[in-house]
């Protein structure tokens, strides 16, 4: 679901085909019929953005038919754990959970805590509110959110009304097959077939896997889509077992790597949160804030990870006396996400911008805003393989035609540096499975092309030189950077960087063998604790390429290296039963070898090798020792799989169906229409199309979604420049159903204009049965689709789909909702020049779009007149607080 794997990950899809040939059933659930659907055993079309309703109903189906893997659920999940008495569910509050603050449009999550732990939960109080601003909802990538110290109460019989099991039952009771049909447009029979296939392929003997990608993430509640799938997979016992799991099909070749060692403003390597200006000012306080007091699990050792990172940054300069230079780390003061930054650019608050390996003029939501922002800088550095739209916007963007950018007056000075491509430099890719694969340089970079490593190394070197004499205190972090990578010629060696990332024992100078060796006393340095082990034994483990037929091919541990600790399946302790025996012979993966007294199997076991299955920790144990021998989710604070998330998500402990930010329909489940904590920016240059309960949603009656083609890559900089790819998809097009074509008089290969409140673009029409009108809430709704690969540069050009999307974000990870919006479609080409603005303006007028549209996040009161948690409910206040998106 939410992945078009055959087109976006064709090489990985070979394994799906292989599984299929061995009898696996493939089900594809997607708004449109794609090349993946063509190969699936069952294709189910659904309305974009409605997945939580679908998945919630699967949960309900499992709970009501008793199809869960009971022993697994009881032993390995938090089903039995009790939650605070004062927790209120969406069933009680018309679509909100307890703790919602209408003014900040954010939750205080303290009432979501486990019972018996809340007493000491003050540290967690209001976390979500600041977390939302700082986008730190996903800063728990490897460790899970902290839990306060204590032992939560449980009810192993699962009968207590406050236990997670019962909360789930209640939360999803109205998610019925009929509701799925009503919300998603999926016929009841099709839905039930999916349920039957999914549950019958799960259990002791069999496992089922979920594959998703950005069809799930790019939503205002994207993180919750994935949570919903996690719940199902836990209920069915599909986590930590071979053939199970939830596979995120990641994007660019190393996009996984760029979250592990992040290019994000709110994270440090290894998912250590970026310190906050309002948070603790010393290292100890910082460490305590990211792990619970007396926390169980490996996240407990966050101090060693943080200190080692600081040692890697500042080397000798970082000592225990100066708190390892913790002070020198930048602190976040609010939302510095890319969209906030772009708006700041428009507002004149940003002067310079580095753009490396990104083409936001085409690839990012709200293309026009992106271009207007970049047109208002002093300087812009673009490092890319090709001359991309983000470097040429000042002379060829659509805004030239409308007069919104005047080349002669555009103040931005653009510096374009040719970058070396991946074939022209050494390095690793970290892919979907957390697997690092080293690639050797195949050819020398041509001309002036240089690696990004070269660029940053020398930029850093020059800055250090330039500031060497400075006495300004703020230059200390730069002056003392440990900038000591091996350089050959003028090229820094990627290999030596990888070794530094792996970590070094500073006393012996040897590469570390793994993160268990990390120390908090300053004797180790490590660039990214989760990657520690990639250079174990002074060997570049990522460069191993033992073919699968020359090793145990189940996990193929000698191909590349996966974090953590070369483990291929996370939480693989769950592949054995609580006693450590494989759940079934067919699905054996790691198990307890009682004779040898250790864990063994195909993969690197997730638990400590010699911890017996029956191990019970002493009451005062912390960290890994505090995990029981049958706690498989070793990174989680309680060692359990979370059916209910007491923390970590800022928009609810259980996934709840909300309509997309822009939707033609009202939410039939609750008065609450959209995700109440989604992030919106009500600005004149970021308008939203109206959705119920606002009036005039019918001005933009169709559901719009945009995504990929196998033939092109993202913003096109790497594919529209190549003849062999360009010829395969030479033009921008819009896919519509025959029914919609008839309704709107569209001709096959004729032109259509697509209109939202942001802009209007034109595209050739492709009429195809692959697009499905759906029956939702008793009426037919049309969805239209287009690729977003086109722009003004390259061998083939076309208008950009992202000009149609606005900026509305998931509050956990600040990803834009670029997978769904509403629009209108009409036959013919779009008007040119100023007439384009007039057309868009006329639509907005008809729809009554103002800066307020879409910014009233709490819609419960409006419809049902329910009492509010916060009596200060005032829509204007919402608008002021959130709508303007000011930093606070």
């Amino acid at each position, binding site marked *: 679901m939410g992945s078009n794997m055959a087109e976006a990950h064709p090489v990985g899809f070979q394994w799906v085909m292989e599984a299929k040939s061995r009898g696996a059933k493939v089900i594809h659930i997607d708004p449109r019929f794609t090349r993946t659907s063509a190969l699936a055993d069952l294709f189910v079309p659904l309305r974009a953005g409605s997945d939580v309703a679908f998945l919630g109903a699967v949960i309900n189906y499992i709970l009501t038919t008793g199809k869960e893997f009971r022993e697994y659920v009881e032993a390995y999940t938090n089903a039995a754990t009790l939650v605070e008495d004062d927790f209120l569910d969406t069933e009680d509050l018309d679509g909100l959970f307890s703790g919602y603050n209408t003014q900040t449009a954010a939750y205080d999550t303290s009432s979501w805590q486990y019972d018996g732990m809340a007493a000491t939960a003050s540290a967690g109080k209001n976390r979500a509110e600041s977390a939302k601003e700082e986008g730190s909802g996903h800063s728990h990538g490897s460790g899970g959110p902290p839990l306060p110290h204590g032992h939560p109460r449980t009810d192993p019989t699962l009968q207590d009304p406050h236990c997670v099991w019962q909360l789930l039952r209640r939360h999803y009771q109205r998610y019925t097959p009929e509701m799925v049909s009503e919300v998603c447009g999926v016929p009841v029979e099709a839905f039930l077939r999916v349920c039957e296939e999914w549950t019958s392929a799960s259990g002791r003997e069999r496992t089922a896997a979920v594959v998703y990608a950005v069809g799930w993430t790019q939503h205002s509640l994207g993180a919750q889509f994935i949570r919903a799938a996690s719940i199902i997979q836990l209920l069915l016992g599909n986590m930590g077992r071979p053939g199970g799991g939830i596979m995120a099909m990641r994007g660019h070749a190393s996009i996984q790597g760029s979250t592990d060692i992040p290019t994000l403003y709110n994270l440090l390597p290894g998912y250590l949160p970026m310190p906050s200006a309002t948070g603790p000012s010393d290292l100890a306080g910082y460490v305590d804030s990211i792990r619970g007091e007396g926390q169980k699990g490996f996240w407990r050792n966050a101090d060693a990870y943080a200190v080692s990172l600081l040692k890697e940054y500042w080397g000798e300069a970082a000592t225990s006396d100066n708190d390892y230079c913790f002070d020198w780390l930048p602190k976040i003061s609010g939302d510095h996400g890319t969209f906030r930054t772009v708006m700041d650019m428009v507002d004149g608050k940003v002067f310079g911008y580095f753009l490396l390996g990104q083409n936001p003029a085409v690839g990012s939501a709200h293309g026009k805003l992106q271009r207007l922002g970049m047109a208002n800088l002093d300087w812009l550095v673009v490092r890319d393989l090709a001359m991309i739209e983000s470097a040429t916007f000042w002379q060829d963007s659509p805004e030239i035609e409308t007069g919104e950018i005047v080349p002669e007056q555009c103040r931005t000075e653009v510096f374009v540096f040719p970058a070396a491509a991946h074939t022209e430099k050494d390095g690793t890719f970290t892919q979907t499975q957390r697997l690092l694969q080293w690639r050797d340089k195949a050819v020398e970079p041509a001309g002036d092309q240089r690696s990004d490593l070269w660029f940053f190394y020398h930029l850093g070197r020059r800055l250090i030189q330039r500031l060497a004499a400075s006495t300004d205190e703020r230059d200390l972090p730069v002056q003392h950077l440990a900038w000591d990578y091996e350089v050959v010629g003028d090229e820094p060696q990627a290999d030596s960087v990888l070794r530094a990332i792996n970590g070094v024992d500073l006393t012996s100078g040897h590469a570390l063998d793994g993160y268990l060796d990390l120390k908090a006393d300053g004797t180790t340095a490590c660039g990214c604790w989760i990657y520690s082990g990639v250079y174990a034994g002074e060997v570049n483990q990522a460069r191993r390429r033992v073919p699968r037929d020359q090793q145990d091919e189940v996990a193929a541990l000698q191909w590349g290296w996966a974090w953590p600790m070369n483990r291929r399946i996370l939480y693989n302790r769950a592949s054995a039963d609580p006693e450590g025996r494989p759940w079934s012979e067919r699905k054996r993966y790691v198990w307890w070898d009682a004779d040898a007294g250790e864990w063994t199997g195909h993969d690197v076991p997730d638990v400590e090798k010699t911890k017996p299955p029956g191990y019970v920790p002493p009451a005062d144990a912390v960290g890994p020792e505090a995990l029981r021998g049958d706690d498989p989710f070793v990174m989680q604070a309680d060692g359990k799989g979370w059916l209910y998330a007491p923390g970590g998500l800022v928009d609810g402990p259980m996934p709840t169906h909300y309509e997309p930010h822009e939707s033609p329909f009202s939410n039939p489940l609750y008065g609450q229409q959209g995700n109440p904590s989604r992030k919106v920016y009500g600005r004149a240059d970021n308008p939203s199309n109206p959705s119920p309960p606002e009036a005039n949603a019918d001005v933009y009656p169709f559901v719009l979604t945009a995504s990929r083609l196998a033939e092109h890559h993202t913003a096109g900089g790497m594919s529209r420049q190549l003849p062999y790819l360009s010829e395969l998809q030479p033009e921008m097009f819009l896919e519509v159903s*025959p029914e919609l*074509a008839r309704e709107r008089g*569209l*001709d*096959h290969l*004729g032109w259509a204009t697509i209109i939202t409140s942001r802009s209007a673009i034109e595209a050739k*029409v*492709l*009429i*195809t049965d692959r697009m499905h009108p759906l029956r939702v809430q008793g009426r037919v709704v049309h969805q239209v689709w287009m690729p977003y690969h086109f722009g003004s540069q390259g061998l083939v050009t076309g208008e950009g789909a992202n000009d149609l999307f606005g900026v509305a974000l998931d509050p956990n990870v600040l990803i834009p909702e670029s997978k769904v919006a509403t629009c209108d479609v009409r036959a013919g080409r779009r008007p040119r020049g100023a007439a384009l603005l007039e057309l868009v303006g006329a639509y907005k007028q008809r729809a009554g779009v103002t800066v307020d549209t879409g910014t009233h996040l709490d819609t419960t009161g409006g419809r049902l007149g329910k009492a509010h948690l916060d009596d200060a409910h005032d829509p204007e206040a919402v608008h002021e607080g959130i709508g303007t998106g000011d930093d606070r």
Partner: protein
Amino acid sequence: MAGGRQGGRRGGDDGSREVPVVPRATFTSYYGRAVLKPPVWTDDIAYYFFLGGVAAGCSLLAAGADQTAKPALRKGTRLTALGALGLGSVFLIKDLGRPERFLAMLRVVKPTSPMSVGTWVLAAYGGPMGLAAISEVVPQRYRATRAGRVLALLARPAGLAAAGLAPAVASYTAVLLSQTAVPAWHEAQEELPFIFTASAAASAGGVGMIVAPPWQAAPARRMAMFGAVVELFASRRLGTRLGLVGEVYLTGTAARHLERASTLTAVGVLGSMLLGRRSRVAAVASGVALLAGGFFERIGILEAGRASASDPRYVVEPQRERVEREGPTRVGEPDEHGAAVT
């Protein structure tokens, strides 16, 4: 609605008209795209076919005229043969994708390739034919030289040799066309040799009537008559015997050319029979008509081939019918093994 589905060709760009007006067509194709590649040969090849036919017919007439002492007819036809073949070769070479590599044809002798066979036949024919023709134009002052005398001596055997090869020159081109996958040509493998030789005869007859005075042109007139009758008959048969594929000979551009060809041939032959003996002017006019008829005949046939290869119908439907009638083609296998793995 992007076409290509069961039920046949995509009707233009109007994806919006969903409801089929006609019941499921009897054949399916891939978006109405051709299965075959239409022949790359331009009209140049038709010119060559025509001119080659003229040359062959003329060589035959010339040899007869030589034997029966009709010098004007002999000289005229010999020279025409040379001119026609010369010009024809220019068209032939010009139509190559790489004309400068024409001689690559002589790298191999390939019996399975009518073009290879034809090339060698042409090469064999060209020498004696040319010799015979040149003998006609040796200036008086060279005739007495040794070379001149040898040439004069050789002219007759050379002419005979050319005449012996001429029928092959006129007919190999029919095989050349038939040995393609182009339905209109392949299916016409019975008719095309007769059309090509008959048309060559008619055209050469026309040449004879132009170059020779009526009293020497009787054989030419008879040749034209034979040729025209056979040509007209065989052409007609193209439209009737070939079933569905015959359509391309009866419709469109090809049919227009072929009708024009038939009319001109009929007019030419009638003119020659009724007036050819009496009036030189009428004879010349009839000759021109016959030549024009032969010319359009070739163009029409070329055009029919193009039309049949460009429309998937003419490829798919006959094959499909055959499969439905007889099962898939099977060669060299006893019947009981007939069931294919399908």
